[in-house]
């Protein structure tokens, strides 16, 4: 990509015996929302930190906005906003004071930041709480304040580490509305998330596992990579269902979901009767069985399993 704002190549970071990030490479363009997804300890936070140049990589290159981050770690900070996974604002300062603090650090002209703060707080329905201490905000409001602080200067790159963890669905919607607005303005965004429905909203996704980039594609592109089909089986006893189905020929994986289980098979038409038979033999009660479109979660479980087998 020629207009890449963030370019990562061969990025590695080791903590003692743990290789937290292992030869990562990707690029993010202007106006792109790039998702980092992966299980706990996959290396998402470590990657974010190196992009924000608050941690030095052991190996690799990071170029942000045309500037080599390793060679000039301070120069990129002016145009980058980083929102850490752990709330990084001051509990004993009010909403306004926190915003003002970050506006001052980024030397945003007074007129501009006042106006931006107004807009940002209104967009996240926070205007009422401007004089409240940050420590007395709910988890969701804290995250929205974090975003407001991160956006009070006009960053070209926005790094968000699990910004919506612990945020209620309504606030999450507001959050994403703001991100879409930024996308229209051409901000490059890297966002890590534990919510896979959120991953679906990203323009492109990178699946991290044990510090390695397993797959990187658009959500649709990733789904197309999933071979076979997904069966949804509704059942009041999903665990017994899983035990009965796992290991049957053609079954690639079983994922428990709210109403029962998603079963990944190589061929829906051929396997459906076999599975129904096996369940009946095991005496597992089922209420419904049908082919469904895979969710991102199914996809990742499937892809991770395949990756595991391959390596």
């Amino acid at each position, binding site marked *: 990509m020629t207009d890449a704002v963030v370019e990562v190549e061969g990025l590695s970071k080791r903590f003692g015996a743990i290789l937290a990030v292992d030869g990562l490479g990707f690029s993010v363009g202007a106006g792109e929302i790039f998702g980092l997804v992966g299980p706990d300890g996959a290396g998402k936070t470590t990657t974010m*930190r190196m992009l*924000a*140049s*608050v*941690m*030095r990589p052991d190996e690799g290159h990071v170029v942000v906005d045309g500037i080599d981050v390793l060679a000039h*770690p*301070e120069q990129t*900070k*002016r145009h*980058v*906003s*980083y*929102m*850490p996974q*752990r*709330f*990084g*604002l*001051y*509990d*004993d*300062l009010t909403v306004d*004071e926190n915003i*003002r*603090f*970050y506006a*001052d*650090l*980024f*030397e945003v002209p007074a007129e501009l930041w006042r106006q931006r703060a107004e807009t940002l707080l209104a967009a996240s329905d926070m205007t009422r709480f401007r004089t409240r201490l940050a420590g007395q905000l709910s988890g969701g409001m804290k995250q929205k304040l974090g975003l407001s*602080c991160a956006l009070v200067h006009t960053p070209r790159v926005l790094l968000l580490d699990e910004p919506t963890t612990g945020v209620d669905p309504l606030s999450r919607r507001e959050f994403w509305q703001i991100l879409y607005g930024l996308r229209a303005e051409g901000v490059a965004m890297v966002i890590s998330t534990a919510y896979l429905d959120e991953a679906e909203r990203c323009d492109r996704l990178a699946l991290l596992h044990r510090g390695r980039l397993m797959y990187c594609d658009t959500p649709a592109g990733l789904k197309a990579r999933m071979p076979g089909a997904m069966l949804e089986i509704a059942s009041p006893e999903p665990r017994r269902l899983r035990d009965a189905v796992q290991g049957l020929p053609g079954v690639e994986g079983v994922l428990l979901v709210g109403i029962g289980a998603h079963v990944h098979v190589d061929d829906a038409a051929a396997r459906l009767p076999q599975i129904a038979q096996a369940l009946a033999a095991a005496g597992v009660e089922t209420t419904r069985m049908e082919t469904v479109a895979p969710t991102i979660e199914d996809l990742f479980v499937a892809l991770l399993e395949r990756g595991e087998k391959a390596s």
Partner: protein
Amino acid sequence: MRLRRVRAVAVKEVLQIVRDPRSLMIALLIPLMQMFVFGYGVSLDVKHIPLCVQDREASQASRELVRHFGASRYFSAPRPLAGQGEIVRRLDDGTCRIVLVVPADFSRRLNDTGAAAVQALVDGTDSNTANIAANYARAVLSAYSAGLRLDTVQRRGESLQTLSPVDVESRVWFNEDLESRNFIVPGIVALVMAIVGAQLTALTIAREWERGTMEQLVSTPVEPMELLVGKLLPYFGLGLMDAAICLALAVFWFGVPFRGTLFTLFFTTSLFLLVVLCIGYLVSVSIRSQVAASQVALLLTMMPTVLLSGFAFPIDQMPALVRGVTFLVSARYYVHILKAVFLKGSGLTALALPILCLAVYALVLVVLAARAFRKTLD
């Protein structure tokens, strides 16, 4: 260095300080308490030093001499000792700090030559007390000799005018009444300032690490020097308040005479404050836990100040190597300055050398503190 960022950090820090009334109270009460605790606890005033006498002559003259010692408020009632063995035993078990030995030929020599020597054995384990005891003994002896001389003159029937008076009295300068408190209290001010100053800043960086605010802070363009200055400014103000409390107590409560100018005091105190604030900051930068940072800062300031600043133990009596080390102890200069400003009324020019040392010290620490802070998480 951008002024706006410095101000932002300073304002933020002030808001945090005033919103934490408990810490604020502690910051202002601790020096008050320490002044009292140290002021009374460490007072080296030496009165009623246990005195033993071995009078080998037991003549009228020797008894008169012993009576002089007994009349002095510096010494306890003299306790007579019999033999050499008892002297050692008494000094060993501490029932006696100074032994006066009057030789058997005391009055004969006095009559024949007009001069006689007595021996004073002083327990030197506590060098301060030893010094003071020896000085007191000398003072008592010279008062006694002055009396003798007067007697002689009158006996000879000469008029006082014809005799040129020989002043053998050793005068103690600047602290005429030999109140050791006057020496010690300025030292205590330095001690309290060192402890409190470093404590003020020891938490400031460690707190950001502990509360998780550092990660976002280091991702901004803020420069280490801006952070340092912004964070030191509020604590500098607080430290000056602490200094005012300590110095006011020294003068108005402990009654130490103040002969210098307020400006000299303010100037030198500011320098010392800068040094100790930087020490606290350096500790805070290196240790990311508040509790540990606070303890290390306490150790780093209290130990050298107590042991090596000359506040309790005279520097000129230390072994050469240790004396060399004292030059690295910032409190050494401040203790010296404070004593001089208080008791001698010294001004900036008289104190140019220690002030220069303190200024160099401060400069080095500021540079170190700004450099020690790295804007990374590893």
